């Protein structure tokens, strides 16, 4: 009896250990993948290189697999459909080419790319953010110049004036943007009505007032997913754009004309803390990731959402479609011009300089970028497009929200880029966690300013 028991428990022990070591293998280094998979199933994953064998032998080109890293994980969004439909179409036309989508959340993709870059294994096509965020990669020579791609089929002329400048270094363009967006405040008209709010706020004071009213009615005033800390920063920077009385604060800091301990910055931190203290954000905001944060608004549980206009198509595809409007971020303490916006010149597609199939990848990207505007237009996602597209929004059956946003675009009188697009990564990290901290505790605003200044000085080149 004893002996059998022993054998049995040993057997359990061994099988357990085996399972454990298997689990360990599966886990290591794949966290980004795992959680991406749990967040959003990849619909085109089955099209890996294994499928090639079944194809007819008639095609003459050599078999090529292009890895396309992207940040469109949510199957409910038009962008997700866009990338899947375009890649499928290209693969149909070019049977020798397989395009493998590596689909991740924004923050996960950033980290994965950095990890890959450190070992010089950048995927054939990846996504980068403009200006300062992209610079270290370009400096390290990881991306191929795309001037020839732009010259092909007149692609260059489709981009809006000046947009490509954010992705150009030393006269070469290194990435093709997927859009050109501004930060707006989306609001749920139905919830505003329920709370008895007639007009959208035009000053920060009114906004705070609305926040309190909404809060009393048990409605979450502002949706946010602050586990991905860029979301809070994006909102904060809009306040700073106002308190500074116009764009260029970070540029002034960079050029030494101002410091973070400038009154404009401290005022912005104060205003932001007022929002937090008023209970504007959902409980536990810092444990909600950006997608889930957006879904609070898109499922009609929050009244406002301060985010880039890139969400227009996704909102129109969600359950609150038709109930949503948008307005400019209000003035703060009477300062700032509502027609100055936080600018988000897209994320952009870059090609690895070390790609094994540079020619094929460039050909695909040309196809992709040329067809992107048309496809987005079809999918009702043409608002915030960085490229010119023929067609009238209203006539094509676009929502009032889309027309509303397009109207805001016409009012743009300049603005700022996001913090992490302007400052170097080390300073940006301190900034991001400093803003995240404001969500969970009250901090002396001067101390926040000081923390920023110290980080900036410590990481200055």
């Amino acid at each position, binding site marked *: 009896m004893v002996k059998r028991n022993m054998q049995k428990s040993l057997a359990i022990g061994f099988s357990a250990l085996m399972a454990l070591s298997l689990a360990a293998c599966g886990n290591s280094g794949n966290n980004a993948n795992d959680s991406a998979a749990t967040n959003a199933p990849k619909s085109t994953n089955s099209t890996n290189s294994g499928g090639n064998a079944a194809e007819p032998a008639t095609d003459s080109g050599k078999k090529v697999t292009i890895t396309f890293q992207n940040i469109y994980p949510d199957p409910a969004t038009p962008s997700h459909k866009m990338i899947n439909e375009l890649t499928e179409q290209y693969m149909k036309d070019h049977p020798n080419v397989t395009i493998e989508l590596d689909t991740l959340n924004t923050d996960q993709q950033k980290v994965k790319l950095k990890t890959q870059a450190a070992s010089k294994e950048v995927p054939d096509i990846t996504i980068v953010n403009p200006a300062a965020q992209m610079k270290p990669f370009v400096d390290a020579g990881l991306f191929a110049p795309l001037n020839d791609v732009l010259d092909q089929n007149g692609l260059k002329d489709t981009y809006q004036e000046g947009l490509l400048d954010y992705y150009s270094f030393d006269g070469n363009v290194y990435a093709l943007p997927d859009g050109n967006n501004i930060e707006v405040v989306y609001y749920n008209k139905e919830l505003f009505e329920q709370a008895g709010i007639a007009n959208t706020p035009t000053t920060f004071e009114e906004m705070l007032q609305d926040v309190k009213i909404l809060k009393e009615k048990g409605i979450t005033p502002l949706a946010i997913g602050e586990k991905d800390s860029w979301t809070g920063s994006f909102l904060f920077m809009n306040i700073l754009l106002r308190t500074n009385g116009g764009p260029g604060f970070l540029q002034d800091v960079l050029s030494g004309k101002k410091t973070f301990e400038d009154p404009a910055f401290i005022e912005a931190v104060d205003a932001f803390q007022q929002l937090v203290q008023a209970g504007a954000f959902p409980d*536990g905001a810092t444990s909600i990731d950006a997608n889930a944060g957006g879904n609070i608004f898109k499922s009609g549980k929050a009244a406002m959402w301060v985010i880039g206009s890139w969400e227009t198509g996704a909102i129109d595809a969600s359950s609150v479609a038709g109930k949503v409007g948008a307005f400019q971020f209000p003035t703060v303490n009477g300062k700032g011009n509502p027609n100055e916006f936080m600018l988000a010149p897209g994320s952009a597609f870059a090609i690895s300089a070390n790609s094994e199939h540079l020619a094929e990848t460039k050909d695909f990207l040309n196809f992709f970028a040329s067809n992107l505007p048309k496809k987005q237009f079809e999918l009702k996602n043409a608002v915030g497009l960085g490229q010119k597209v023929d067609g009238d929004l209203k006539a094509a059956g676009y929502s009032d929200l889309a027309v509303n946003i397009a109207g805001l675009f016409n009012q743009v009188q300049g603005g700022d880029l996001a913090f992490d697009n302007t400052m170097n990564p080390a300073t940006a990290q301190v900034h991001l966690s400093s803003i995240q901290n404001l969500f969970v505790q009250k901090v002396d605003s001067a101390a926040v300013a000081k923390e920023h200044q110290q980080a900036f000085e*410590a990481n200055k080149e």
Partner: protein
Amino acid sequence: MKVLKVPARTIAVFVLPCLLLYVCLVFIPILVSVYTGLLKWDGLSAATFIGLGNFKDMFVNDPVFWPSVKRTLLYAVASMVEIPLCLLMAILLNRYLRRGNTLVSIYFTPVILSVVIIGQLWKTVYNPTSMGGMLNGVLVSLGLESWTHNWLTEPQIAMYALYFVSLWQYFGYHLLIQYTGVQNIPDELYEAAKIDGADGFKADRYITLPLIVPIFKISIVLAFIGSLQAFDLVMVMTAGGPAHATDVISTHMYNSSFGSFKYGYGSAIATFLVVVCLVFTGVINMIFNRIDRKFN
């Protein structure tokens, strides 16, 4: 070796592949990262050698570093405190249940689940009331509203919420190890003790405990080293936030390397982690050798 009658050369041939693999996959990377820790390097462009600059920064200037070390060590202590409980449970299971195996297997289930799943699962348990968090829901329905918290986002609480999940997950693992150990103690010893008048907990004190020491040691070392390297659970549940309140050494290393592009600095932290692991493994071994000697 003479007993085996195998020439040394043969032994070398058989040992070499494994040794090579081990050296290549473990020692060389550690040495490389020690060297990288001496560089100012962003992981992409050219590096500059700055000697011990990173370590100085780490020990003196970094406001995140020491708190994260403290949290890591607390993590380790918490998971070691769990082991005696596992042992007690194992003894009870062994004594009162004829078929403890089924129960042990059930306790073991969380271990085979992926940490990502565990993390997501517990996130929904810990969610704030407004998002339907289970724990808060239960507290509210018991009339204990004042006990509800935002478990993962209140800086003072969040880390303990993470410790608990980790303890919960690995309880079954250590229970299994202890249970196997307890079962391997021959019944004859207990029978003899019974005749001499030692029964129940007295028998445990004089028979089970001394004989279980080596197994106990394995659990302690595994728990300790495992929690020093804790990473995945923290990453999934809080990513070190809010504002570094749940950063442990390994997440701080990760954020420095890949968030701030301070690859050299991240490597310095990694080096520190390796040294801590080695030192504490040594210390634990020493302590147990003493205990062993005392019993024998």
